[in-house]
């Protein structure tokens, strides 16, 4: 069993318009010192997954099922008080927008001190020293002075560093970062990604990074999970997903991205249509209305949900096409077009 082991996780929200299956049967694992990248577009259920692990999903009406094992402890069946005591200590989270995610009325130091003192019975002075120390470790210059600044007095990059300092203050073993660099400038994004990589090595924590940006995933991840319509459609090592992808949606994502590291093509290869709304996921394979190969599998595409099946060595794909068919398409049709880029 992995350090974090999620089995058949379902998070459903009953609404007036019907049942929203934000996460619908997700399984994955992350080891200490390893990074899992969860990739998906808006409405794929990637953020709800992370909130669900921490027990932060909104609304008392949400229906959670499945198992979440953290270091040998099951969390879905655990009491809310117990999950709370783990939050911030054993598992912590970094959010997308550091400005709105920090309280505007408290100094950065006060917020870190608070996070530390929830789980550590220490005096304010000790906690303050720790906060200064943490700010220094995430690369904030003059931490002893900046500890008394308010979030709005920080620049975007500094704020995200402070958020990271806050999340790491209790030395968590699982860190979840939800779009940690989306709100940042590109040069600052690079700094933050470097910082996260270095800190992970230092703290040896399990890291889950959630993003829509394949570039960010490639920078950090050991394993990658591609989500679509609340389900995992492809799951494997970073090499599997980038060099031997087998799901048409993954191909589509790769073809949609203009890339700096290759010669530009005449045209991008977009996926037709838009991501589905979670309230109305297409029947059968959720991707079939946008899939250029849906006709190959006939009625099955619209009537039967394909199983997430292993193709080779822990590489999982959810597709009706046969393994040979998918590999053939990738080698002969998709890869040559992408490679000329």
């Amino acid at each position, binding site marked *: 069993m992995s350090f974090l082991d999620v089995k058949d996780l379902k998070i459903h929200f009953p609404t007036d318009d019907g049942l929203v299956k934000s996460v619908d049967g997700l399984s994955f694992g992350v080891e200490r010192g390893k990074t899992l990248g969860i990739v998906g577009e808006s409405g794929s259920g990637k953020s709800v997954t992370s*909130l669900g692990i*921490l027990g*932060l999903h909104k609304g008392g009406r949400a229906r959670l099922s499945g198992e979440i094992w953290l270091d040998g402890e099951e969390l879905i069946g655990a009491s809310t008080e117990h999950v*709370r*005591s*783990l*939050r*911030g*200590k054993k598992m*912590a*989270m970094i*959010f997308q*927008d550091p400005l*709105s*995610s*920090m*309280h*505007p*009325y408290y*100094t950065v130091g006060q917020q870190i001190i*608070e*996070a530390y003192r*929830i*789980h550590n019975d220490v005096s304010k002075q000790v906690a303050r020293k720790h906060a200064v120390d943490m700010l220094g470790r995430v690369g904030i210059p003059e931490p002893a002075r900046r500890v008394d600044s*308010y979030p*709005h007095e920080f620049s975007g990059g500094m704020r995200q560093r402070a*958020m990271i300092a*806050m*999340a790491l203050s209790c030395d968590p073993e699982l860190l979840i970062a939800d779009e940690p660099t989306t709100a940042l400038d590109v040069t600052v994004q690079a700094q933050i990604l470097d910082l996260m990589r270095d800190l992970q090595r230092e703290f040896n924590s399990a890291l889950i990074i959630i993003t829509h940006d394949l570039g960010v995933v490639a920078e950090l991840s050991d394993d990658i999970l591609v989500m679509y319509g609340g389900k995992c459609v492809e799951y494997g090592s970073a090499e599997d997903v980038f060099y031997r992808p087998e799901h048409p949606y993954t191909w589509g994502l790769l073809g949609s991205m203009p890339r700096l590291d290759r010669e530009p093509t005449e045209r991008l290869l977009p996926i037709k249509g838009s991501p589905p709304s979670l309230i109305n996921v297409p029947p059968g394979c959720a991707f079939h209305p946008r899939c250029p190969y849906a006709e190959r599998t006939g009625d099955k595409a619209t009537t039967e949900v394909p199983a997430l099946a292993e193709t080779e060595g822990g590489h999982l794909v959810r597709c009706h096409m046969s393994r040979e068919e998918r590999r053939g398409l990738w080698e002969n049709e998709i890869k040559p077009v992408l490679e000329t880029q």
Partner: protein
Amino acid sequence: MLTYIIRRLIGAFAMLVVISMVTFGIFYVVPQWAGATPEAMASRYVGRAATPETVHLVAERLGFYDPVVVQYGNFVKGLFAGAQYDYGAGVEHCPAPCFGYSFITGQPVWPDLLDRLPVTFSLAIGAALIWVVAGVAVGVLSALRRGSFFDRLTMGTALAGVSLPIFFTGMISLVVFSYGLGWTPPGGAWTDFSENPAEWAYNLLLPWITLAFLFAATYARLTRAGMLETMGEDYIRTARAKGLRERQVVVKHGLRATLTPILTLFGIDFGLLIGGAILTETTYTLPGLGQYAILAIRTQDMPQVMGVVLVAAMFVVIASLVVDLLYAVVDPRVRLS
């Protein structure tokens, strides 16, 4: 920060000057424009039976023949330095701040106002305490249990509270609690705090609750709305992600941000109230500023009316000044600008 305070102070002072001009204009200049002769205005002081010579003399001594600017100057001077009124029979000194003499009683206005102030102040402070505590508590609980029976019950009551006028709720509670059950004293009871604090509170209990009910309703609704918004903020999610207990999330993170806009409203409401809770004071016949204002208006006693208006306006200006400064303490983002 210092410039912020100075700018606010200057703003408040300018506001008071404008208010004094407008008040002076309404009570002394507009009647003259409307055709009232200096004699007509002076006759208010001496009664209808006086001879034209007396009226003319008084008008002259009161400065009604002077240009408007000079009259305003004398008025302001009276406020700050006091004034001398020469009635022919002798010189009367009206000490600062001089709001003039009542038409009716012949007494200076200011000591009267000073007498009335403690009553209104007691009423406002007690009611404010009750409505803030009750309103905010109910608002927070309703927001946290949105859609529950408690939420619907309190919000329904709050709607009633906002829509029912004070003279109605006041009369009903007088009839029920004072005359019916005899739990509270009948209207008009007033004991000074320094004499007997217990009786002071006992006498004011019903007016407090009646007045607080109206405001608590508004504050509960506002707190609920603000709380619902705040609890959806990203930083609340962060607070939870730290592992904070829900109660601390609500109080330390949610309430703190929700209360800031309510603070502004409170300052202004409180300032207005010190200027006289007219309906409540009238309903319970409490000898406060509001009742004084009503009497003054009824008897058309201009100096009295003007005195009340100026004092009330001053409280509103001071209250909003205090709120602005407090705001900077509460919300660090304000200090920057």
